[in-house]
């Protein structure tokens, strides 16, 4: 380290601690006084750090008065000059950056399943926003396979399922999320699903009650009222309109309004040609035959029974129910007596059936 002497107090000090003023070298305390004097005498008073041109400005290596490399206003040793002109990236930095890149590649590969789940979540969300709930469900179900505890995933799945009448899927999505617990239950998304969920459950309760009443004679109007109330609460069940009509058919049957019975059954058959709607129409036509004796009704009723059996092929449960119904319908056509299923059971058998 080069030593220099202060022009005022003659103290010897390290050159890097010295200052320069008007060509003279000073120590820290003296330079202030010298600047004050210079100012008072009208001389320049700008203080600058003393640059010892015999040492490297970076590493303080002695380079002599004429050695080293001059870069701008500083003189540097050869090693420092090379470094300053093209500062190298340290080895540890290169290794760290390479490691970081590898980690990033690993994270992207590791996160592939999350990426797919997330993409499905966003696709599902977009479809839910467009009101395409049924189309959204497959995407959202895939998301929940990877992330069952995702608030957004579970709530969107439940919403899409509930708004497309799929209460079971909604139940699975909600139960699968921390055992049905949501921390942020004040969020509007949660409140919306909670409201839908409670309405769906109340509707299910009313439908179950209606189903029990339907099995008893004389409660058709009460049962239909419950189904209408359930439909108002939660209109999203699939084929809710058909279910409403079927209960209304029960009311028409009880009131012996067979024209209304036929009209409703005919409408449902046209809307949804299935074994159940065919059987209902067959039953209504048999009633019309019983009261009018018009063989056209009988013929069509028999055709609808055949159609119903044809549509139920492969479905053992439906075929069993149709077997029970066919027997009662045949009795209605042959005797032209209109009796309820319970009356039929009491009269001819002890086993219970389901169709009207």
């Amino acid at each position, binding site marked *: 380290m080069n030593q220099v002497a202060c022009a005022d107090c003659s103290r010897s000090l390290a050159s890097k601690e010295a200052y320069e003023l008007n060509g003279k070298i000073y120590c820290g305390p003296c330079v202030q006084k010298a600047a004050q004097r210079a100012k008072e005498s009208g001389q320049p008073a700008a203080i600058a750090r003393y640059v010892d041109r015999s040492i490297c*400005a*970076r590493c303080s290596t002695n380079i002599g008065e004429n050695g080293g490399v001059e*870069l*701008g206003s*500083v003189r540097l040793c050869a090693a420092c000059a090379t*470094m*300053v*002109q*093209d*500062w190298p*990236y*340290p080895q540890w*930095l290169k290794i*760290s*950056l390479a490691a*970081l890149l590898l*980690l*990033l590649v*690993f*994270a*992207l590969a*590791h*996160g592939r399943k*999350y*990426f797919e*789940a*997330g*993409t499905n*979540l*966003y*696709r599902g969300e*977009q479809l839910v926003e467009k009101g395409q709930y049924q189309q959204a469900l497959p995407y959202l179900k895939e*998301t929940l396979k*990877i*992330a069952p*505890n*995702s*608030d*957004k*995933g579970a709530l969107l799945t439940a919403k899409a399922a509930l708004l497309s009448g799929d209460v079971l899927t909604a139940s699975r999505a909600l139960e699968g999320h921390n055992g049905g617990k949501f921390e942020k239950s004040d969020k509007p998304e949660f409140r919306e699903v909670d409201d839908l969920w409670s309405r769906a459950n109340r509707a299910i309760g009313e439908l179950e009650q209606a189903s029990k009443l339907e099995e008893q004679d004389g409660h058709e109007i009460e049962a239909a009222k419950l189904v209408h109330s359930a439909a108002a609460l939660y209109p999203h069940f699939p084929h809710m309109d058909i279910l409403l009509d079927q209960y209304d058919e029960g009311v028409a049957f009880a009131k012996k309004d067979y024209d209304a019975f036929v009209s409703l059954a005919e409408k449902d058959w046209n809307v949804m040609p299935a074994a159940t709607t065919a059987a209902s129409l067959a039953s209504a036509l048999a009633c019309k035959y019983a009261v009018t004796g018009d063989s056209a009704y009988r013929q069509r009723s028999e055709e609808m029974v055949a159609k119903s059996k044809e549509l139920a092929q492969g479905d053992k449960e439906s075929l069993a129910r149709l077997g029970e119904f066919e027997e009662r319908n045949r009795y209605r056509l042959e005797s032209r007596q209109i009796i309820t299923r319970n009356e039929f059971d009491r009269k001819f058998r002890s086993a219970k059936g389901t169709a009207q």
Partner: protein
Amino acid sequence: MFFIPGQVIALLTFPGVIVHETAHLFFCKLFKLKVYNVCFFRFGNPAGYVIHENSQNFTAQFFVSTGPFVVNTLLCVVFCTAAFLPVWELQVNDPVAYFFYWMGLSIGMHAFPSKTDLSHLWKAAPALAKQGNLLAIISLPLSAILVVLNYGRVIWADLGYGVLVGILGPIAIFRALTRL
């Protein structure tokens, strides 16, 4: 607002400091500026620095000053994107994802250029902006915003910026990808 010493924050988010200084160094080298000293990380204030010559070339000045802002912001988005879905949307307890989110936020937090960097830009920009220099025109509002944000560090504006970029960036990317 609670106070945490800057050195503790720098220690907790050291990758951001290293990336910031590396970006400075990268642009200095790119524009062939002399670099007198570099500190990638230390327990002090500032936590890192690059001492380089002042360039007369505004383009070099612009990129050396704002380079770390762009690089740190982009890396924040990249790292947070790798971790965003499991951490935020899917709520999966994956330590690798949390590590990457910490990495992303640390980098994002150190995106703001220092006041010294911005003051150089701020001094040179007006005259060049009058001559129609596009970078100078851009740098005026950018510097103004960054100066304000720099002062906002006392109320955690740097953390706020990191979180904002680390959330909004990935959301924008995923939304765009799912619309494709």
